C-alpha cells in the first residue's frame, strides 16, 4: 500500500499496463520528452523508449483519428488530450469513428483505445480549459465514460480501461491531480465499470455525484452531519456504463435524492440520472428530485469561477429543501 496523489496513481498505472502488455503505447501533445504538461507520463519515455511513448504534432483530430488505425491493426493506444476542451477538435473522430468502429464492423473489430483527458474547474484556467463535457460524450454511444474521484479508483479504473476491448474516455479531474491522495495497493487490481461506490451509508437522503464534485459533496456532508442529517452518498465512478441497479437501490433506501455535478444543468448527465430514477424508483420517492449543477453559461474567467462551480453551501441548501418537501 502506498499513498499516491491521483496523478501519481495514473502514472503508475500507465507504467504497469505498459509492462504488462507491450502493445500499449502512449501519445499526445508534450507527453513524451516533457512527460505531459501535468506530468502524468513523466519518465515513461525514458523507461519504454520513443517507439512506445511519443510526442505528437499539435493536432487533435489526427491524434484521435490515427488511434483508430493503430487500434484496428494490433496496438493499444492510450492518448492524451491536453485539456478535455481541446478534444472538441477531435469530436468527430472520437464519437463518430472511434466509438462506432465495433458497430460498423459488426463486431469484427473493436477499438481498444483509452483517451485520457484532464478537465474541470477551480484551477484558475479559462473557459475551455475548465469545461466539463461528460454529457456530450455520454451520448457518443459506443464510448465508455469513466470519471474517477480518488487515486484508488483511478488506478483500478484506468487498468480496466486499457484492458477493455472497447474505447474508453477516461476523465481526470484537474483539481484532484495533486489535491486528492489516498492509499493505493501496490498490487495489480481492476475495478469493474458500472459499479458505483458508496462513499457513506446513511438513511435520510441520497446524494449522487461523481468526479470533480465528489470533494464538494464531502464538504457538504460534514456540514449536514453536524446538523444531524444522515445522508447516503454515492460516487457513480462511470457514467457510461451506468450502475442503474445500484442507483435505484441507493435512492429507494432514502426516498430522496440530490444529484450534484459540475457541468451545466440543461441536458446534463444529472437529467439522465433523474429520468432513470423517475422511471425505476418513482414509487419510493418522497420528495421531488433535485439537481445542483453549474448554470447554463460558459465557464467563466478565474476571478468569478467560485460563483459558477456548485459549492458545498448549495448542496447543503438543496438537501435541506429536499428534506422539507
Amino acid at each position, binding site marked *: 500500500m502506498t499513498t499516491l496523489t491521483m496523478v501519481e496513481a495514473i502514472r503508475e498505472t500507465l507504467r504497469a499496463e505498459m509492462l504488462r502488455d507491450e502493445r500499449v503505447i502512449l501519445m499526445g*501533445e*508534450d507527453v513524451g*520528452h*516533457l512527460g505531459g*504538461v501535468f506530468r502524468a507520463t513523466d519518465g515513461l519515455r525514458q523507461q519504454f523508449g520513443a517507439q512506445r511513448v511519443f*510526442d*505528437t*504534432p*499539435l*493536432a*487533435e*483530430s489526427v491524434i484521435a483519428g490515427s488511434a483508430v488505425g493503430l487500434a484496428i491493426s494490433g496496438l493499444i493506444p492510450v492518448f492524451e488530450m491536453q485539456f478535455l*476542451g*481541446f478534444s472538441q*477538435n477531435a469530436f468527430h473522430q472520437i464519437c463518430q469513428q472511434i466509438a462506432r468502429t465495433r458497430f460498423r464492423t459488426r463486431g469484427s473489430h473493436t477499438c481498444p483505445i483509452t483517451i485520457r483527458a484532464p478537465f474541470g474547474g477551480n484551477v*484558475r*484556467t*479559462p*473557459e*475551455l*480549459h475548465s469545461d466539463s463535457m461528460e454529457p456530450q460524450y455520454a451520448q457518443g454511444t459506443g464510448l465508455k465514460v469513466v470519471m474517477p474521484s480518488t487515486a484508488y479508483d483511478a488506478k483500478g479504473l484506468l487498468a480496466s480501461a486499457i484492458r477493455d476491448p472497447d474505447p474508453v474516455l477516461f476523465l481526470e479531474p484537474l483539481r484532484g491531480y495533486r489535491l486528492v491522495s489516498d492509499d493505493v495497493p501496490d498490487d495489480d487490481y481492476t475495478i469493474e465499470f458500472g459499479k458505483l461506490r458508496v462513499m457513506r451509508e446513511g438513511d435520510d437522503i441520497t446524494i449522487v455525484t461523481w468526479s470533480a464534485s465528489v470533494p464538494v459533496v464531502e464538504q457538504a456532508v460534514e456540514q449536514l452531519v453536524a446538523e444531524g442529517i444522515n445522508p447516503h452518498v454515492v460516487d457513480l465512478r462511470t457514467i457510461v456504463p451506468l450502475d442503474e441497479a445500484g442507483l435505484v437501490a441507493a435512492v429507494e433506501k432514502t426516498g430522496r435524492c440530490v444529484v450534484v455535478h459540475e457541468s451545466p*444543468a440543461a441536458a446534463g448527465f444529472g437529467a439522465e440520472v433523474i429520468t432513470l430514477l423517475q422511471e425505476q424508483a418513482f414509487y419510493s420517492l418522497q420528495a421531488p428530485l433535485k439537481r445542483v449543477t453549474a*448554470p*447554463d*453559461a*460558459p465557464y*467563466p*474567467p*478565474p*476571478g*468569478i*469561477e*467560485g*460563483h*459558477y462551480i456548485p459549492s458545498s453551501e*448549495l448542496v447543503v441548501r438543496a438537501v435541506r429543501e429536499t428534506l422539507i418537501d
Partner: protein
Amino acid sequence: MSKSRATRGSNLDSDRALSLLTMMERIRAFEEQACLAAERDKLVLGAIHPSIGQEAVAAGIMQAVNPDDFLLSTHRGHGHTLAKGAEPLAMMRELLGRAGGCCGGKGGSMHIADFNVGMLGANGVVSANITIAAGAAHSMKLQRDSRVVVCIFGDGAINRGPFLEGLNWAKVFDLPILFVCEDNQYSATTRTSAMTAGDGAAARARALGLVDHTVDGNQVEEVADIATQCINRIRSGGGPEFLHAITYRRTGHTSFDPAAYRPADEAVQHEQRADPINRQRELLTLAGKDKSELDRIHTQAQQEMTDVLQQAAQSPFPDPALALKDVQDIGSPEQELR
C-alpha cells in the same frame, strides 16, 4: 519566395524607426509588468503567455496596418494587441480579471479582444483564429470594404487542420488577408521542427498558391518593410499573402514555465545575439541617434507600464453576476443566479 532587404544606416526612416523602438519597448515593459503581476504579486488568475523577445513581429506588422484594419491573434497576443492600438490599462485589467478590462475582465489574457481598435480577438484554441480570420476577410470582400485582415498564429498552429482549411479558403475566394506565422520555434514544450514535416510554414502556403515571404522576425525594420509591401498589395486587391516571421520564445511557454526541456543557455545566447530591441537601438545609434534619447524611450515605457500595473491592481473585480450575463438573448441563465 522573396526576401526583404534591411533598411540600414543612412537611409533609415528615423521617425518610423523610433516609433518601432517605442512600441517594442512598451510591449516589453507591459509584459515584464504582467509577469511580475503573475509571479511576484500573484494577481493574474491562471497562466499568461509572454512574447518577450518576439516584439519585432508585433510592432513591425502593426505599423503597416490602419487603425480600422482587423487583427486576429493568439494566446500569446499581448504584443499584437498593444501594437494594434489597445489601451494598456484596459489590457492589464483584463489580464487581472478586473472591471474596466477590454472585455470587462471576462476574456482574460487568452481571449482578449478590443473591437474598437479592430482587434477581433485572441484565441485560446491554437489555429482556431485562422478560419475566423478568413471569414472576416471574406466579409470585407463581399461588402467591398477596403479594410484588410491580419491573422497571426504560432508555428504549432500550422499542424492543425484549420491552417489548411483557412488558407485554402482565402486563396479560393481571393481574400484581403495577410497570414503571419510567428515562429518562435516552440510549441509548448516541444520543438516544432521535430513535429513538422516538409519545408515548413511558407512552403505549405506556397503549395496553396499564396505569395509567401520569410523574414527575420527579430529585425523590426525588415518586418515593417515587408509587411508594408504585403498590406499595400493586399489592399489593392492582390489576394492573400503569407509571411513566415522567424523569432524565438525567450521565456517558458507560460510565465511559470522554467523551460527546463531546452539547453540552459539557449535563451541567453539568443538574447545576446538577436534581441530585437537591442538591434533596433544599434541601428538607431548607427544612424546618429543619441543614446540618451533611446534610454529615455526605455524609461518612459517602463514608467508607463509600472503605472498601468499599479492602477490595474487597484481596480475592482467584476460583479459575479457577470458570469451569467451575455450568454444568449433568451432563456438567460440569470434566473439561476444565486
